[in-house]
């Protein structure tokens, strides 16, 4: 890869490559429009085991089991999916000290057109803060690899979950009316 190609690497390529370099082999997800290129990139790479789940809670259960069995894994979802998770975060992931890697495509801000999404978004950070869960809102691609790589290593070393909120500033988000 030459310098020009490196310079134009997309956010989803950075996520894929950072997961790979940290030996995160299992990626489960509930589909999301913004995450589609990442989901496709992971499906296209035989390094990963990846498939959709019917609910975010289910995905968290799978990731928990995989970690206990010795496999690092990540969950992909959108903001409204995260809002279904407080029970399993508080009763499974946090008390059992599971380093779940949770990627959330942020909806509900920066041009949201659906009031329901906007309200759901406001529940996300208070839930994370109430449980004292590490979380980062990633807005800049030049910080993406650093935040992901360091935080994945920290999650594993400290046996604690981490949530990466992928801002529309990073991903482009979902266009108004889209």
């Amino acid at each position, binding site marked *: 890869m030459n310098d020009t190609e490196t310079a134009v690497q997309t956010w989803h390529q950075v996520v894929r490559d950072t997961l790979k370099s940290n030996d995160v082999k299992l990626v489960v997800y509930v589909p999301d429009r913004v995450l589609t290129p990442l989901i496709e990139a992971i499906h296209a790479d035989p390094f990963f085991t990846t498939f*959709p789940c*019917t609910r975010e809670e289910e995905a968290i*259960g*799978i990731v928990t*089991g995989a970690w206990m069995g*010795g496999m690092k894994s990540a969950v992909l979802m959108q903001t409204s999916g995260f809002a279904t998770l407080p029970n*399993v975060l*508080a009763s499974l992931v946090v008390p059992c000290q599971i380093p779940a890697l949770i990627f959330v495509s942020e909806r509900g801000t920066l041009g949201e057109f659906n009031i329901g999404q906007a309200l759901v978004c406001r529940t996300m950070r208070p839930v994370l803060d109430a449980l004292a869960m590490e979380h980062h809102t990633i807005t800049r691609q030049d910080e993406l690899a650093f935040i992901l790589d360091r935080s994945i290593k920290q999650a594993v070393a400290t046996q604690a979950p981490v949530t990466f909120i992928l801002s529309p500033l990073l991903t482009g988000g979902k266009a108004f009316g889209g």
Partner: protein
Amino acid sequence: MANVKSMNRFDLTKRLVALLKHDEAVIGGIGNANFDLWAAGRRPQNFYMLGSMGLAIPIAFGVALAQPHRHVVALEGDGSLLMQLGSLSTIAMQRPKNLTIVIWDNGIYQITGSQPTSTASTADLVAIAQGSGLANSAWAADEDDFERRVAEALKGGPTLIAARIDDKPAVATTDRDPVQIRERFMRGLGVRDDPN
């Protein structure tokens, strides 16, 4: 539902554990499912759920993905499964060979006051499992049939075995220390070394 015998969860749990000869992992669902697993004898390959109702099957599936050479058994109640029916279709799509799902169906939310679940009147969990794509799903007719089905399931799956059970409460209560439960389980699976 087929005409099946009403059995006892603790009795069946003991029978199941007695059939485990290869350090199989067992995930006990929230409430009585894991209480009776605890009472059936401590095994380092047992994981006891203390919350997150409905996740015994997804957790077991995760373990099965991480350790494809170890068989994994999920023990789940009817009320819990009804909360997470979609997990059956996910598993059916992925077809893990090393996963067995056991459903204890007493037709009640026993631990919250024995309110009836939909299986008491209308829902058939085996039919739901089959409709989700888990073709190898069946009711255990009696204790001998349960043991035979478990032994067969341990040879390769995915398999779902449902047992109609009575309304007797669990015979003991699991010690509620999630970090200890998780750590012991990881050592039991060979993921962590015992420091002692």
